[in-house]
């Protein structure tokens, strides 16, 4: 086929005698003469990307987003963002003749009366869940390998804003069908907003166009969901990817990998082919899930009505931590002052969750300030080689997981035959104490692993081979690690607690004292990497162990 076309085009372009490369070459030349794209292709095509499965998680998020865009566009053809009341007359019998909003009615039509509509709805929703989940896992990878260090701090912030925007997209989308579940979710948001002192009620009235639920909210959320939020997300994704290209990709430590190089495959042809194929794999997985598993069965929930709330009413998973935080607040946390009720049960949640989010977002700057590290880092940390950071991460994950699981307290109670109160009280304890426990355990585990690495570098693996020496002594032969492995185990950057130094005026400010204190807390327990001296001494001390035949 190709040869045929090639001959045709060659015949057709008899004038261009110098073009000997056939159709591909002439087409490429045509495009290049008009766009000068060859410079970009040369630059990008030879861009090297290292190969590791965890480097594909961001790609999964990107591909999920593309799937969401495609399926979402389909849905906009049929969805009506209106809260005008209509009577449902579609195919689903148990809702026939029930008054509902046009939004709900059109979503029902998409689900039951438009060919492929239900599949597209389910693709859209499952892909949305996958999108946020992939972002979450991607962020965990970035955090625990220290990929947010200079020069990538800003990209961490962009990525984190994308995470927040993805949650906002998810929540606005969850509210669009105007079914019972989405209405209940909006009512909780309304309650949260009204719990803010002084401005709460006015903000709520502004958002809903009057008293909840009003007739405006679905249209407004629709504008946000399909116009404003996606536009910001696309722009930020572009910046995020641009930064990846500018910074080069990080790589895991191994022999031959330094801060100055990137070891991997060029984008063209291998990586582009792999990544392109991977898009279809992700699409396929989402399609498979969407065709086999129900998601958000709005036909069960029925149209929104402020009076009923179904058992098992939860937000989608990514909002779960906020829902769980509210479930964990003990009852009666409110007081009356100057004739106004102050709802601590809501304010505490907003403050704690807000602080948590902001802390995660600015963490790269906090760590950089504590360590005082101004170097660029392109080689990733193995999590054990940054024990305090890894322990902080584990504490954060425990905190988040406690809040998150609290959102399913009722499901846990029924399915594990527990009491609701027991589940809530247990999670209250794990939320407050769990992070400390996780911090301590993780830090000790990291240090222990580092000690083990050190031991292996110095003395090799235990081979399990016992040899009896001529003198009658039994020794175990240790198998030395090879050079490559040793590089991986021994090459990591070591930090010492900062020395308090007076500034130009000869004073030590309070900020410096805090910083020194934090630095001590960060680095006082540490296992230093094996030095060359130690290595040669170790090998010199035990020649029998290493060189035994």
């Amino acid at each position, binding site marked *: 086929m190709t040869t045929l076309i090639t001959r045709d085009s060659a015949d057709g372009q008899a004038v261009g005698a110098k073009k000997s490369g056939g159709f591909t070459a002439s087409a490429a030349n045509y495009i290049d003469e008009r766009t000068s794209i060859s410079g970009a292709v040369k630059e990008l095509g030879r861009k090297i990307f290292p*190969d*590791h*499965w*965890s480097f594909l*998680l961001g790609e*999964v998020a990107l591909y999920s987003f593309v799937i969401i865009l495609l399926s979402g566009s389909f849905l906009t053809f049929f969805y009506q963002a209106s809260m005008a009341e209509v009577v449902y007359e579609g195919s689903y*019998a*148990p*809702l026939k*003749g*029930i008054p509902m909003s046009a939004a709900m009615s059109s979503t029902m039509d998409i*689900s*039951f009366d438009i060919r492929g509509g*239900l599949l597209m709805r*389910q693709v859209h929703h499952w892909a949305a*869940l*996958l999108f946020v*989940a*992939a972002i979450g*896992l991607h962020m965990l990878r970035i955090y625990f390998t220290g990929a947010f260090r200079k020069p990538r701090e800003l990209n961490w912030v962009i990525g984190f804003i994308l995470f927040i925007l993805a949650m906002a997209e998810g929540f606005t989308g969850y509210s669009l069908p105007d079914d*019972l*579940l989405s209405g209940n979710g909006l009512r909780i948001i309304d309650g949260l907003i009204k719990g803010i002192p002084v401005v709460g009620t006015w903000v709520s009235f502004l958002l809903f166009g009057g008293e909840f639920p009003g007739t405006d909210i679905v249209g407004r959320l629709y504008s946000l969901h399909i116009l404003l939020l996606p536009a910001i997300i696309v722009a930020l994704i572009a910046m995020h990817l641009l930064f990846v290209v500018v910074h080069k990709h990080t790589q895991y430590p191994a022999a031959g990998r330094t801060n100055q190089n990137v070891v991997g495959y060029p984008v063209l042809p291998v990586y582009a082919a792999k990544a392109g*194929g*991977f898009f279809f794999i*992700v699409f396929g*997985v*989402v399609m498979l*899930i969407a*065709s*086999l*598993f*129900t*998601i*958000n*069965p709005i*036909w*069960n*929930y*029925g149209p929104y*009505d402020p*009076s*009923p*709330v*179904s*058992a*098992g009413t*939860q937000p*989608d*998973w990514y909002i*779960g931590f906020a829902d769980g935080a509210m479930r964990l607040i003990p009852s009666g946390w409110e007081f009356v002052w100057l004739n106004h009720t102050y709802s601590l049960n809501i304010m505490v949640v907003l403050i704690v969750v807000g602080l948590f989010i902001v802390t995660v977002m600015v963490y790269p700057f906090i760590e950089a300030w504590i360590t005082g590290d101004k170097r660029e880092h392109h080689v990733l940390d193995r999590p054990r080689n940054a024990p305090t950071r890894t322990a902080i991460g584990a504490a954060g994950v425990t905190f988040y997981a406690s809040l998150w699981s609290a*959102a*399913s*307290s*009722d*499901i846990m*109670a*029924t399915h594990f035959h527990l*009491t*609701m*109160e027991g589940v809530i009280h247990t999670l209250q304890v794990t939320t407050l104490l769990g992070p400390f426990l996780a911090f301590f355990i993780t830090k000790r585990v990291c240090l222990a692993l580092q000690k083990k690495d050190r031991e292996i570098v110095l003395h090799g693996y235990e081979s399990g081979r016992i040899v009896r020496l001529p003198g009658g002594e039994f020794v175990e032969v240790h198998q030395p690690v090879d050079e490559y492995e040793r590089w991986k185990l021994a090459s990591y950057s070591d930090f010492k607690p900062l020395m308090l130094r007076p500034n130009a005026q000869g004073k030590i400010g309070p900020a410096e004292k805090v910083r020194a204190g934090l630095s001590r807390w960060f680095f006082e327990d540490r296992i230093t990497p094996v030095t060359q001296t130690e290595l040669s001494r170790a090998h010199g001390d035990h020649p029998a162990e290493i060189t035994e035949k």
Partner: protein
Amino acid sequence: MTTIKSPRTRRARKTGRRHPLASVALIAIGLLFTGGAYAAFSTSTAVATTDASSQQTIDQGEKLFAANCATCHGLSAQGSSEGPSLIGVGSASVDFQVGTGRMPLQMQGPQAQKKPVQFTAEQTAALAAYVASLAPGPAIPTADLVKASGDASAGAELFRINCAMCHNVAGAGGALTEGKFAPAIENVSGQHIYEAMLTGPQNMPVFNDMNMTPEDKRDIITYLKYVEDNPSPGGLALGSLGPVAEGLFIWIFGLGAIVALTVWITAKSN
């Protein structure tokens, strides 16, 4: 018995009625006959004794009650510190509690659990007749009220407003306080659903005929049977538990599959 056993003692011939397995076969046939006859007889009596008013049935129920229920509910159903009085609860309540296996109670706990039904339909009917004879109370509904022949969409709306806050919109059940729960309403007969609404077992409120007419109840049963009989249009329903099940699914199976595929894609060939 002796005639059956005797051939086995003489082992000279091995065919026909002298075959070593002949006695086994004979016993099997005998058991099948008596069992079959008993089954046929007992079903016919069950049909015969659904007449709840007959004194004979009531007497039989009283005996069963004294043997199985009186420990907690008292010899004349007056109640004790272990169980409530049953005077005036009516036959519907007995049919629900005993017919779904909740009574006799398996163990003390936050709430009576379902377990395999302990009594036959005939015995349950006798117990119901006995309790109903003590004082007037809600009666077992007639067959036409418990069929799925009502208006499903009216039933669905009533269900969402009155039942879904505990039982979940799809009847998948939900949690209550202190270990109590609203059970899933799947594979529950229309009669038991009706009786539950009528009598309010465990923590369930009573929906009597004044606040929910028999036709309304039938509509609710119609909706629940519709959900039960029609598979979820979107595929497997994941327990109809809502976003928790969906989130768990995408993290474990969705992202799990994706991560496995990323590992596969980046694996180095050997």
